């Protein structure tokens, strides 16, 4: 059977669930200058699944606390306000999309990779003097189109997985081979449906072809953060294959990272990923 056209796929994307309410509230709180910890804690506590995931991080051995953290308010004190907002966003995106069972596709590995890309993008924010929150969000969502394709057309996606394995090629190349487009376009459509800002939509659309993204946008940074997450094997939940994406030399040069900055980014990415890992369950 013929695979769906891009228009058909995007039409189906509109039927996926809306962005979870807690994530919307956290995003709004990021935009505001006033940060009220009590109000934020109250919003988060309304969602039990997200609350449980965030508390799991605060209670992990990584933070080495003597006593157990029982409330979101206390968790904010332990891991910090900025980290809590990132964690809530990650937890709400993870719990807001349907669970997937598909042969050859590891959902755990998918979430590990996007969380790894998000923390790498956040680590790049410091040397590049960019806002870490938008980069974290763009990293978290950069492959969301792939999940949508898998949920909406599991049979076609199984074919894509087969092509990638047989040709030892990147998944996005196999997507283009089968569908005629890849997850970038589908992800951008989903981000538009969720009313994300234009810079996030642009990052999702062009993270594999950053030269086509808007000048000074986030696509080039997510392009590199994606590669860092692959190179550090942050998606690994066992010994599995994997391969690096091809990096756009102009996009890499435009970041202007020297050896020390790149090393600091790698160290911060690894450390932050280890601290956020319990979120994945």
């Amino acid at each position, binding site marked *: 059977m013929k695979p769906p056209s891009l228009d058909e796929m995007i039409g189906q994307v509109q039927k996926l669930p809306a962005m979870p309410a807690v994530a919307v509230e956290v995003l709004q709180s990021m935009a505001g200058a006033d940060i009220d910890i009590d109000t934020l804690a109250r919003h988060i506590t309304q969602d039990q699944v997200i609350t449980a995931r965030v508390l799991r991080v605060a209670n992990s051995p*990584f*933070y*080495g606390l003597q006593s157990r953290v029982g409330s979101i308010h206390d968790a904010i004190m*332990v*891991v*910090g306000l900025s980290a809590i907002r990132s964690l809530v966003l990650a937890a709400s995106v993870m719990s807001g999309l349907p669970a997937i069972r598909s042969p050859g596709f590891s959902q755990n590995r998918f979430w590990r990779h996007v969380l790894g890309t998000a923390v790498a993008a956040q680590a790049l924010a410091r040397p590049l003097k960019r806002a870490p929150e938008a980069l974290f969000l763009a990293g978290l969502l950069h492959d969301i189109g792939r999940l949508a394709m898998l949920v909406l057309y599991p049979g076609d996606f199984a074919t894509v997985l087969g092509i990638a394995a047989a040709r*030892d090629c990147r998944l996005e190349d196999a997507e283009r081979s089968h569908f005629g487009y890849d997850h970038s376009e589908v992800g951008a459509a989903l981000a538009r449906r969720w009313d994300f800002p234009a810079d996030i939509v642009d990052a999702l659309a062009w993270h594999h072809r950053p030269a086509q993204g808007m000048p000074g946008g986030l696509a080039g940074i997510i392009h*590199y953060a994606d*590669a*860092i997450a*692959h*190179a*550090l*094997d942050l998606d690994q939940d066992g010994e599995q294959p*994997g*391969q*690096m*994406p*091809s*990096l*756009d*030399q102009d*996009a*890499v040069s435009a970041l202007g*990272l020297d*050896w*020390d900055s*790149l*090393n*600091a980014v*790698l*160290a*911060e990415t*690894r*450390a*932050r990923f*280890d*601290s956020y890992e319990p979120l994945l369950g």
Partner: protein
Amino acid sequence: MNTALMQPLEGTLPGAVLAAPVTDAAGTVLLPAGLSLTAAHLESLQRRGIGMLAISPPEDPEALARQHEKIRARVMYLFRHTADEAGSQALLHAVLAFRQASGK
């Protein structure tokens, strides 16, 4: 299990391995556990006012060499289609050095 040694930053030499992550006063993680410290790391920690470090006891050199080779093979496998591309060079070399130093 080996016991970590708490020691002052002053006097810690490059090559010492962190037994626990280094955090600043706000709890932000600066360096992960398992990282083999370089001179640049030590200078950076000094600038940030870090006083004490948890350091792992030294490892068996042969076991370390085997671990480095395993990591090198894995990184080269990941870069099997892109190792020669200009855009990949800096990341390939930095990741190889970082992963061998951190053992991850």
